[in-house]
């Protein structure tokens, strides 16, 4: 999957929790820190990104709800991948 598409899906799913603007900027910031560049993103990179996002979401939502939100993101990414 393309990095930009991943960022879009993450922002869409996390939007109701933390707002699309925050979700997008947090995802882009984590991508930059993880060295994820434009182009395709590997499943290992995706997992690393989701791990970082989960750590941040803990602050706002607590561990259980953050884990549930990340599971939603993972599921949305899989659906997108499967639909290609």
């Amino acid at each position, binding site marked *: 999957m393309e990095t930009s598409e991943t960022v879009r899906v993450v922002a869409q799913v996390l*939007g109701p929790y933390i*707002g699309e603007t925050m979700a997008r900027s947090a995802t882009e910031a984590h991508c930059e820190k993880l060295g994820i560049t434009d182009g395709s993103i590997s499943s290992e990179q995706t997992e690393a990104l989701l791990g970082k996002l989960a750590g941040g979401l803990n*602050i*706002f939502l*607590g*561990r259980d709800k953050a884990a549930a939100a990340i599971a939603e993101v993972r599921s949305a990414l899989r659906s997108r991948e499967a639909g290609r």
Partner: protein
Amino acid sequence: MTKSRGVDLLPWVILALVVVVYGGWALAPSSALYADVLTPELLLAAAALVKLVYLLAGALWAFACRDRLEEDNPARPAWALLSVGLGATFVGQLSYAPYQLLGRAAPFPSVGDLYFILAYPFLVAAFVVLLRAYRESGFPVGSLGERLAIVCGVGLLATVVAVPILKPVVNAEGPLLERVLTVMYPVLDLVLLVPLALLLRVALRLRGSHVGSVWAFILGGMIFMCVGDISFAYFSALGWTHLDPFVHLTFILSYGLIAGGAYRQYRLLHS
């Protein structure tokens, strides 16, 4: 409308009603309604009760949020500090209750001021801890330059706005302790505004979300608290006691919004 949605809406309906009643009192204090039915004594007692309920609810919900977060969650101490800050304000307000519930103005200064002042370090610390938690979690809180610009901007704005407002307060006659306290509240509010302004930057990015609504309420409540303290200081110094209803209104709104924000966070963690 479902029963649970109705229960969720009830506190906001009550808050809206309170705003209408106290807003009306501030705008038309000499009207027949406020002279004969909703008398100042009655409204003072009701305001005391409403403030106590909101403060206690806010402190308990903030503590419940702390309780719902894991021990290693960096936001957990922030909710505990917010709870203590609101609790100290509740105790201060409680010390006014014997006077206000009987429709009499509370003495100033009093032991209550000790608790009101004690609340500020806890509130400031709560927001600083939260900001640090956001930054460490990788959420964008702005570059150092941006944050410095916000701090300087707030400092400059506070100076420009506060100095002319506080000038008559400083020059007012009266016992030294009374004048010191009257100035201290707005000054402490201005200190509180610094982390609030930094949090506002984060909150703007959260807009339209569950977490965004939590912070919209809490930050809105804190801003009303600052407005209430500055208004109280200014009106007291100028002897404009007829504007007391406006001061009550700002504090009721402040405590109501903060309690609402803490409740939303609790629901978010609990759902």
